[in-house]
C-alpha cells in the first residue's frame, strides 16, 4: 500500500500541480516580468528596466499605507488570536449548546469580504450617525471599523483551529498536572499553551498574512477615504494600477515589493513561533 502510494503519487498530485502552475506560478512570474515594463494590457508590454521601482520611492502615500497596514496587522493579529483562544477555551468546557455556539461563531466566514464590508459600513454608519459622524470622517474610525469587521469575520475560523488543538491534548497530561496540584491557571500556562503551539503557529500565520493582504473589506468599508488615509497596501496597489495613465507598471512593481515584505514577515513569524513548539 505504502509503496503503491509512493509510486503513483505524481499522478495523484498532477491535477493540483497543473492548477497551481496555471493559477499561481504563471501569473506570478508574468507579474514579476511586468513590474519591469510599461504596458496598458498585459499582453503587450515594453521592457523599461527598474524605473517603475524608482517611482515607488517618491510615493508618500505608499509609505503611509505600509505603516497603516503594519499597525492594522499587529492589532488584528493580537485581538483575533486572543479572542479566538478565549472562545475556544470556553467552548471546550462542555457548556450546553456548544455545537450551536461553534456554528454561530463560524458563520461569518461564509460571507464574502465585499458583502461583509458593505454590511458593516451600514451598521457602523448607522451607529455613528447618532453622533453626526461617518466611518470615513477620519482614518481612525476606518481603522477600528476594519478591526471590528476582521475580528467578527475571523475569530470563528481561528476558534475552530484552536478547538481542534485543545481537543487533541491528551487528557492524561491535564489530569496528571491536576493531581500534582496545579491550579487551572497553571494548567493553562504550562500544559495547554505549550501543547497548542502548532495551532498558534498556524493561526498567527493566517491572521498575519490575512491582515497584510486585506483588500475586499478595505475597498468596501472605506475605500481608502478620507484622502487615502485608510488605504491599505493591497488597495494602494490597485489604485496605483488604475489611477494614472502609464502607471500600470508601477502598481505591478509595488505588488512585487509587497510580496517580498509579506514573505519575509511570514518566514520570521514562522521561525519564531515554531521554535517554541514542544515535542509531544
Amino acid at each position, binding site marked *: 500500500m505504502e509503496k503503491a502510494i509512493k509510486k503513483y503519487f505524481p499522478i495523484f498530485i498532477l491535477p493540483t500541480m497543473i492548477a497551481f502552475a496555471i493559477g499561481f506560478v504563471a501569473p506570478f512570474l508574468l507579474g514579476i516580468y511586468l513590474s519591469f515594463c510599461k504596458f*496598458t*494590457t*498585459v*499582453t503587450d508590454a515594453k521592457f523599461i528596466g527598474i524605473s517603475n521601482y524608482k517611482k515607488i520611492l517618491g510615493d508618500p502615500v505608499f509609505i503611509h499605507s505600509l505603516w497603516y497596514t503594519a499597525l492594522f496587522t499587529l492589532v488584528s493579529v493580537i485581538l483575533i488570536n486572543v479572542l479566538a483562544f478565549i472562545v475556544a477555551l470556553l467552548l471546550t468546557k462542555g457548556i450546553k449548546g456548544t455545537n450551536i455556539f461553534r456554528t454561530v461563531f463560524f458563520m461569518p*466566514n*461564509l460571507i*464574502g*469580504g*465585499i*458583502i461583509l464590508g458593505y454590511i458593516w*459600513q451600514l451598521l457602523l*454608519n448607522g451607529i455613528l*450617525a447618532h453622533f*453626526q*459622524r*461617518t*466611518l*470615513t*470622517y*477620519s482614518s481612525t474610525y476606518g481603522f477600528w471599523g476594519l478591526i471590528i469587521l476582521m475580528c467578527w469575520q475571523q475569530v470563528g*475560523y481561528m476558534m*475552530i*483551529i484552536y478547538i*481542534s*488543538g485543545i481537543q*487533541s491534548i491528551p487528557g492524561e497530561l491535564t489530569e496528571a498536572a491536576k493531581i500534582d496540584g496545579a491550579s487551572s491557571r497553571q494548567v493553562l500556562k504550562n500544559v495547554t499553551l505549550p501543547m497548542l503551539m*502548532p*495551532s498558534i*503557529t*498556524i493561526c498567527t500565520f*493566517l491572521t498575519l498574512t490575512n491582515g497584510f493582504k486585506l483588500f*475586499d473589506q478595505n475597498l468596501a468599508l472605506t*475605500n481608502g*477615504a*478620507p*484622502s*487615502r488615509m485608510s488605504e491599505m497596501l493591497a488597495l494602494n496597489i490597485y*489604485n496605483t494600477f*488604475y*489611477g*494614472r*495613465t*502609464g*502607471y*500600470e507598471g508601477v502598481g505591478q512593481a509595488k505588488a512585487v515589493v509587497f510580496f517580498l515584505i509579506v514573505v519575509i514577515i511570514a518566514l520570521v513569524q514562522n521561525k519564531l513561533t515554531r521554535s517554541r*513548539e*514542544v*515535542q*509531544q
Partner: protein
Amino acid sequence: MKLKKEFAVLVSATMITGMFAGCGNSNDKGNSKPKSEDAKSSGDGKVYYLNFKPEQADQWVELAKTYTDETGVDVQVQTAASGTYESTLKSEMAKDEPPTLFQVNGPVGLKSWKDYCYDLSDSQIYKDLSSDDYALKDGDTVQGIAYVIETYGLVYNKAILNKYFKLPDAEVKSIDELNNFDALKKTADGIQAHKDDLGVEGAFTSAGMDSSSDWRFKTHLANLPIYYEYKDKGIDSTDAIEGSYLDDYKNIWDLYIKDSTCKPSMLSSKTGEDAASEFALGEAVFYQNGTWAYNDVKDMEVADEDMGMLPIYIGVKGEEDQGLCTGSENYWCVNKNADQEDIQATLDFMAWVVESDDGRDMLANEMGFVTPFTTFDEYLPSNPLVKANDDYTKDGKKPVSWNFTTMPSETWKNDLGSALLEYAQGTGKWDAVKTAFVDNWATEYQASNAE
C-alpha cells in the same frame, strides 16, 4: 509526530480556506462575462461592444439582438459595472477575443488606448457626424467618435421654487431673476430658512461624497473654474492650472454643503441614490446632475413638467449669459488589433445604429440620448432636461464646454474629492483643496506624460 500534526492542521486549514475562497470569489464575479463561444456566429465578422453606461445596459443588449436577427451578425454587448470600465477594459483587451468596439472618455482616456484605435476617418459613421468637435483626432486620423451629447446643470423642482417665489420675504421673485450666483445664494438661503413652510429638507440635495456621487463635484463642478480659466487664456488644455477661479468654486461648494438636506459631517456616506431620491421625492429643490439622471427621477413625486435645469452659477462676471454644461465623455473607438472581418462588422454595426430606424429609435427614445449625428433630425428625446438645454441654446446662452476631460488623471480627481470632503466636514482647510487643484495638476500631468 509534531510535524505530522502540524501538517494535518495546515492541510485542513488550507482546505477550508480554499472552500471559502471559492465562496468569496463568486460574489465578486457578479459581472462575469458569458463566453462568446456560447453564441452561434453566422456571417464573417463578430462585434463585441464593451459598453460604458450601465444605465442603458439592457437597451444595448436588446438592440444587439435586433441587429443579429436582421443580419445574422453576432453582436455581443457587455457592460462594465459602474466605475470599473477602465479595469474591465484592460483585462478584456488582453483576452483572445478582445472588444472590437470600446469607449474612451476623452483626450486623457485616449492616451492609454491610442495604440489600439482604428482610424475611423473613412468610416460611414464619421461621415454622419455633424461636426468635427465631436471627434477625437490625432493629426488626420480619427480615433474616437462621440455618440452622445450630454448636459448637466442644476436640476430644480419648479413647483417648490414657485412656492418660494410667492413667499412674502422672498428676495428673488421669479426664475428670470435667478441668473447669477448672488440670486442663487439668496434663493437657496431663503429656501433653507423656510424649509418647514415649503415642506422640504433643504435647498440642495445632499452633496454626497460616496464614490457613486463624488464625481458630481470633483469632476463636473470642478469643470466650471477650469472652463473660465481656459476661456480667459484662450486655451483648451494645460499642463499647469492656476486656479484663478477657485474662490468661486469655494462659494458654490459652501452653498451646496450649507443649504443642504444633511449636515456636512454626514457627507462621506451619502450616495448618488440618496441625492436622486431626495430630489425625486420633493425633499430638496436643487440637484446638480445631468440629462442622464432623468431616468432615475422620473415617474415619482416630481412631474416631468416640474423639472427644469439651471446653469451652475459660481459668481463669475457676466455669467448671466452662461448656459448649461454640454459635451461628451463617451467616444466610440474601434479596436484595430481585432480581425479585419470583425472590424468591418463593427463599422457596419455602428453605421446601422445611427442610420436604421430601429437603431435611431432605440438611441433617441429608449436610451434618451442626444446624438451628434446628422441622421437624427427627427429623433429627439422626450427628456425634459434635454428640452431645458434646447431652450437655453435658443435664448442665445453660451454653453459651457466639458473641459474636465483634460483633467490629468484619476488620481487628481480623487485627491480633489478627498480634499473637498475634508473641507466640508471640517477636518481639512480650503488650502488643501487649492493644493489638490493647482499643485497636483502639475505633478499629475508630469507623472502621466513622462516617458
